[in-house]
């Protein structure tokens, strides 16, 4: 399991290298393909030269009708070579498209791998809070759209902690007690604040565990809400 440890920056550098080399390889391969294609396509004059050679090599080809036919042959060849140049352009455009698609495919592939890795990290780190809504009127806290009912005192503690977090503040037990009870901090002691935190932890923790781990199926009973494949008994 120790092998799984890897630093995120190292992985990103590796990814960058993969992308750069992959894109370069794709572009190089397609440029070579394009060059070979364009060099191997027959020259526009190839047909005329072939017809001319036939004319020169056959001494018997002196009849004016035969010569007319040879000329027509050369002209049809020239017409075909004109279409060949248009094909050449079409092939070039298709090669460009192929390059773009391959580069995009590579980028998506790398992105997918990175995303998978991050997903695995998220799964390992347990609950990830993406939203927290505190409703004071209903004494309710919504965590990732999961609803938790709290006591009014616990809701108050939760709201104070949330506000302090938004201001990047850290609250001591005395401060918590003084804010909630309205007394000055001289009259408050650390223990009562700690008790409030403990109560909040208990109620919220209980409900969260019951929501995430121990499911209650009404009128049937209780069940662990996890995949049975991940359970191991030592």
């Amino acid at each position, binding site marked *: 399991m120790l092998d799984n440890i890897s630093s995120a920056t190292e992985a990103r550098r590796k990814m960058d290298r993969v992308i750069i080399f992959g894109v370069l390889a794709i572009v190089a391969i397609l440029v070579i393909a394009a060059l070979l294609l364009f060099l191997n396509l027959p020259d526009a004059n190839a047909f005329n030269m072939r017809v001319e050679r036939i004319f020169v090599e056959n001494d018997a080809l*002196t009849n004016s009708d035969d*010569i007319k036919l040879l000329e027509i042959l*050369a*002209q049809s060849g020239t017409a075909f070579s004109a279409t060949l140049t248009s094909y050449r352009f079409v092939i070039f455009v298709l090669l460009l498209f192929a390059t773009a698609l391959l580069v995009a495919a590579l980028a998506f592939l790398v992105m997918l791998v990175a995303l998978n890795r991050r997903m695995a990290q998220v799964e390992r780190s347990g609950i990830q809070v993406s939203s927290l809504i505190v409703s004071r009127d209903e004494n309710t806290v919504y965590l990732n759209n999961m609803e938790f009912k709290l006591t009014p005192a616990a809701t108050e503690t939760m709201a104070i902690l949330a506000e302090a977090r938004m201001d990047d503040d850290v609250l001591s037990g005395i401060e918590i007690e003084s804010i909630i009870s309205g007394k000055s901090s001289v009259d408050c002691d650390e223990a009562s604040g700690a008790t409030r935190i403990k109560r909040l932890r208990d109620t919220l923790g209980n409900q969260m565990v019951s929501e995430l781990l121990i499911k209650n199926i009404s009128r049937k009973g209780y069940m662990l809400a996890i995949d049975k494949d991940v359970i191991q008994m030592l």
Partner: protein
Amino acid sequence: MMKTRTPLSIVLALVATVSAANAGCYADYKAKRDNPLRLHYGITELSAAACSKAAAREKLNTTLAADGWTLLNVISVFDDSKLGQKEANAGQYFLRY
């Protein structure tokens, strides 16, 4: 005997030169023009003094080039006796260049 023999040889020689002049000298050739490709078969007349393929090539290179044609090759050099059968093939290029 000697008297009669000499004039006879002279006469023979004269006849030979006259017949050579009458025989004529012609060459048939192939030529082309580019863009679009045009081909033609033609016959040209050569002087008796320069009656060879090389001479024909030299003459045709200049005369054809004046009209934008390129000489491809000279097929043969011949005399009057074969002129008739080749005339039809040469068509408008018969003795033109």
